[in-house]
């Protein structure tokens, strides 16, 4: 018969006790799938259990998107629930505010200081709130704001915004820098590897 004791669930070695619930939020098309793949790959290389939950299909078309990455000794649900996110990495500031209630006490929110108007603002039905960053900082003590768009633009490719932000997170992730670089080599198309490594470096040293 196929019966198991529930005690032998722990399948990985994790001496530093790394456990992180991460949400990557932004606007469809900003590159959150690649970002989550890099984080997930780094976690595997660190010997952790990991799950990543992605969004494909209709909501990808310029809508609000959220990707979850969970790592630790053993991960069951791929979703991060309200009050559970240790890190929120936001590619757009309004999206940071939208998902901020998911942050855990002592969690960290990393915000790309970029503004993209959603359709209800474009049609004039709603206003884009003026004080987004102030509101988030008021809620969460650990808020890091970075103009990743500007950094990416200076590097010569606005698409590497995502990797700049990964760099910021990598620094405080508890996972070694070499592992991150290895993960980038694994995941990023070789053609764009050099600029992505530069983008990572900019974020890491921010």
């Amino acid at each position, binding site marked *: 018969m196929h019966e198991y004791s529930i005690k032998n669930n722990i399948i990985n070695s994790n001496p530093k006790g790394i456990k992180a619930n991460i949400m990557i939020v932004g606007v469809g*098309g900003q590159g959150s799938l690649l970002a989550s*793949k890099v984080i997930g790959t780094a976690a595997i290389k660190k010997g952790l259990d990991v799950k990543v939950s992605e969004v494909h299909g209709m909501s990808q078309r310029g*809508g609000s998107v959220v990707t979850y990455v969970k790592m630790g000794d053993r*991960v069951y649900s791929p979703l991060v629930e309200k009050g559970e996110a240790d890190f929120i990495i936001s590619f757009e500031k309004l999206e940071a505010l939208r998902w901020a209630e998911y942050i855990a006490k002592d969690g960290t929110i990393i915000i790309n200081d970029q503004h993209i108007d959603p359709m209800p603002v474009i049609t004039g039905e709603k206003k884009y709130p003026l004080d987004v960053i102030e509101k988030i900082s008021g809620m969460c003590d650990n808020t890091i704001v970075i103009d990743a768009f500007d950094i990416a633009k200076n590097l010569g490719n606005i698409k590497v915004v995502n990797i700049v932000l990964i760099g910021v997170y990598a620094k405080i992730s508890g996972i070694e820098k070499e592992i991150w670089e290895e993960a980038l080599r694994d995941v990023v198309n070789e053609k764009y590897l050099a600029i992505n490594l530069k983008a990572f470096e900019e974020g890491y040293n921010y």
Partner: protein
Amino acid sequence: MKKLMLGNEAIARGTYEAGATVATAYPGTPSTEITENLAKYDNIYSEWSPNEKVALEVAIGASIAGARSICCMKHVGLNVAADPLFTVSYTGVNGGLVIVVADDPGMHSSQNEQDSRFYAMAANIPMLEPADSMECKTFVKQAFKISEEFDCPVLIRLTTRIAHSRSIVELEEKEEYKLKDYRKDPGKYVMMPAMARKRRVEVVKRMAQLETYSNETELNRIEWGSRDIGIITSGISYQYSKEVFKDASFLKLGMVYPLPYDLIARFAGEVKNLYVIEELEPFLENQIRKMGIPVTGKAVLPIVGELSSNILSEKILNREPMNTYPVPDKEQIPARPPVMCPGCPHRGTFYVLKKLKLTVTGDIGCYTLGAQPPLASMDTCVCMGASIGMAHGMEKARGREFARSTVAVIGDSTFVHSGITGLIDIVYNKGTSTVIVLDNSITGMTGHQHNPTSGYTIKGEPTKQVDLVKLAHAIGIERVRVADPYDIKEFEKIVKEEVAADEPSLIIAQRPCALLKNVKFEGPLRINREKCRTCKMCMKIGCPAIVDNGSYVEVNEALCVGCGLCSKLCNFGAFEKAGDANA
């Protein structure tokens, strides 16, 4: 070797490891990546079929010819494939046949939330349900074995959170699988009444044997913990439950049809409080109740939408919702619904349809976003291909005059999927409807798959292309127009002429998807503020790159691709190339 894999990718890997050699599908979220990944294996023949019914028929043929075959689709696709499904259950297989169906609880990218487990029950086909990517891989291999051992197709049910979650997969070697011999066997493969009656009896016998198997297989397992709470669950609900009930006992079902009745009875007998935790309909719960076993399930858990560990802890353990930081002025945060991309060819079409105040029967694809403000010009959307039949139905209900203000819009891939028969109906039954095929040269919403109108196969090889003009002529449509939806004036003129015509017409709105690699624009535009009179004409097209910042209208150069549709609406020539100082 360990790899972080999407559930869909792991299904493809398992298919490869099982030695299968034929894979068919029509793309549909959340199932598309299975076949995209299958196409990467050189030893597997893969194809995008025109629709799910054809896909399944091809896979059945391959199976009877002796190959292990797989057919993949989203939940609503199984409705299209239901006809062959119910009868392949009678014929059984030769090489193993696996049908993967991906449900979408929460309707992330679907028009309904149907629970495909009922197909397993209705068609007498066993169904497996994996709970992570590793199980996706091992279950698909097991499914091929079950298929051959019990001579039946096997369904694998995924849900979005399994299909689109990545978790760790241990890769294994590919199994050597030799094609089974093909032999004529009309008693098994020709389902006319005399033969089908005999096969029907075999089906009933097989299901009884499969129930015994379900009691014995490792696909269903008990994890003993505290016996105060016992949980029967499967798929993603297992993961949410493990998160919340760390010490409980679990009966984790990998085979959700037929159920292991003996195992369930024994498990139920040994726990104090029994819960059934499943998303959508009470499929497991109702069957267990019928056994006379009292359980708690949908009495406390929602039928609508996805579950989550928070829902379980609130509804079953009556815990307070997690204490979170209150977001200030939460209701003031504007929603961010999906929108047509900058440069999208559909934008021009819907701008014209709205301007002409037409009744628009719509269909399934990126262009369904034409129902959203500010374009807001689609009246209906039901299923693949429905736009055409519905326009015809409206005409038959309200008369020809109504047809003069009605059009059906349908994408190129959707048209081939199930629009052609609707168009034949219009011609045959003397309708006068106007149908617009939005031909963007690709299957867009699911992420750029080729289709019979694109001229390429799933592997990117050039192939014959359906000629929509000739096709329309061949079925009896005289009025066929090809137009560029970005040439707004001309497009408007053509639409007006065709809806006015007293016979059926087909307009092919031709312009490729802006996200295709070979589509190049000249780079972002900007608005010359000296020329702009802030009339906001340009904002009527609902382009996410044109923004009213309160005092003036500007272009978000990071989003703008430079398609120039906006400049065609500007009466003051205010749009110019960004970075062009002399303009």
